[in-house]
């Protein structure tokens, strides 16, 4: 069996449509992970008894267990408890929740890296709590964490294909479908790999440039 260029080119449009879904899932999953991760980081920092320990335990547990199992749990088991989500929504929730456990650590490191003097100055000025966070700490912490967050977006992008287990029609699912129709999987699957490389390699170069600019946390 050899490589068939005609078939490869023929399968490209369908793969690109699949790639759009992959990118959409990455985008929505990242936004959820950024927001939820910040909430986790702030709750853990708040030292509210019980609640902040619970969040800590959840983060440690959730990031030690496979995303695939979590996605299956959310999509196949939750409907039994009255929570029915479409494959894409379930996938985005699974990605967002899993990666929020990583991003919360990133935010924590970013907040810890804000010099003590900034906190003291904010206290000396008697700024209200909300302004300490929104006006002083987070504007300094967030730019520092952008490269680390970027790295997690890239790894999330490469993990989207495992949502094929819950029926999200992303690029590898499309490759499998093409393979099932034509009994030729080599071309679409290889192209899917190339598409991943074409996006994630330049993206990782970009993140490395950002790291040089703002420094590694």
């Amino acid at each position, binding site marked *: 069996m050899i490589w068939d260029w005609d078939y490869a080119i023929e399968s490209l449009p369908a793969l690109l449509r699949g790639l759009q879904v992959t990118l959409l899932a990455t985008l929505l999953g990242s936004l959820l992970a950024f927001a939820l991760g910040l909430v986790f980081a702030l709750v853990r920092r708040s030292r509210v008894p019980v609640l902040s320990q619970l969040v800590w335990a959840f983060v440690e547990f959730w990031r030690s267990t496979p995303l695939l199992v979590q996605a299956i749990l959310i999509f196949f088991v939750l409907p039994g408890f009255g929570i029915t989500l479409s494959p894409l929504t379930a996938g985005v929730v699974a990605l967002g929740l899993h990666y929020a456990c990583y991003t919360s650590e990133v935010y924590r490191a970013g907040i810890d890296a804000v010099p003590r003097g900034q906190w003291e100055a904010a206290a000396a000025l008697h700024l209200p709590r909300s302004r300490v966070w929104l006006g002083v700490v987070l504007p300094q912490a967030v730019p520092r964490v952008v490269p680390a967050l970027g790295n997690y977006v890239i790894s999330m992008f490469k*993990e989207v294909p*495992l949502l094929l287990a819950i029926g999200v029609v992303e690029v590898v699912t499309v490759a499998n479908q093409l393979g099932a129709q034509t009994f030729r999987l080599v071309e679409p699957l290889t192209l899917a790999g190339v598409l991943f490389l074409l996006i994630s390699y330049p993206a990782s170069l970009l993140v490395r440039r950002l790291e040089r600019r703002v420094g590694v946390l």
Partner: protein
Amino acid sequence: MFDNLGLIVSRLSEGLSTTVIAAVGGIALTVVLSLVAGLGMLSPVAVLRGISRTYVEFFRGTSEIVQLFWIFFALPALTGFQIVPLAAAILVLALNHGAYGGEIVRGAVQSVPRAQYEGALALSLSSRDRMLRVILPQALVEMLPPFNNLFIQLLKSTSLLSLVVVTEITFIANSLRAALPVSEQLTVYAVLLLMYLVLSLLITAGMRWLERRAAARLGRTRATPRINSRLHKEQAA
């Protein structure tokens, strides 16, 4: 909800050995590939640097699932050659995580202060002794914490093998799901997640132990070596 807990645990445990073999085999091969790729990227020979860099960027850039499907489905179609599933699984896990590990090794070796290298050179140690006796023992201490994270990632990745019909614990859980009522499906996945948690805690415990040993070998520890503690006791007496 817990009526069949014993049954669920025993059924899932049937896949535990496969998960553990895949993880341990994958970790062992990952360590080898990481060292080869990491040292390759630091090699004075440009060709070796090029090969190592290409390997690392290729396997980090293409998705792990694509790699897995490629070895399981595309390779046999191309070559007519089917590898034993578990062996193919270990190979993919190691090729993928070895690429990340290569960067860890490279970073750790580069983080050893230059004076150490110069000192070894001044003592006219051979290049092999410089690496094995001076640089690597110090780099090892830096490598172990990121390798801990990498090995946990690898453990989590063994769940992907369920997609290529390797009967590890996630595969068994998925096949149990179809046969059980809703309330017990949750139990299945709760037990499954706990199994992964316990395995990852075991990895962390093992790596912490290695970290302490590696640090102690460099004398970077508070625990006094045995011979000295005996000395202290004699002095105290």
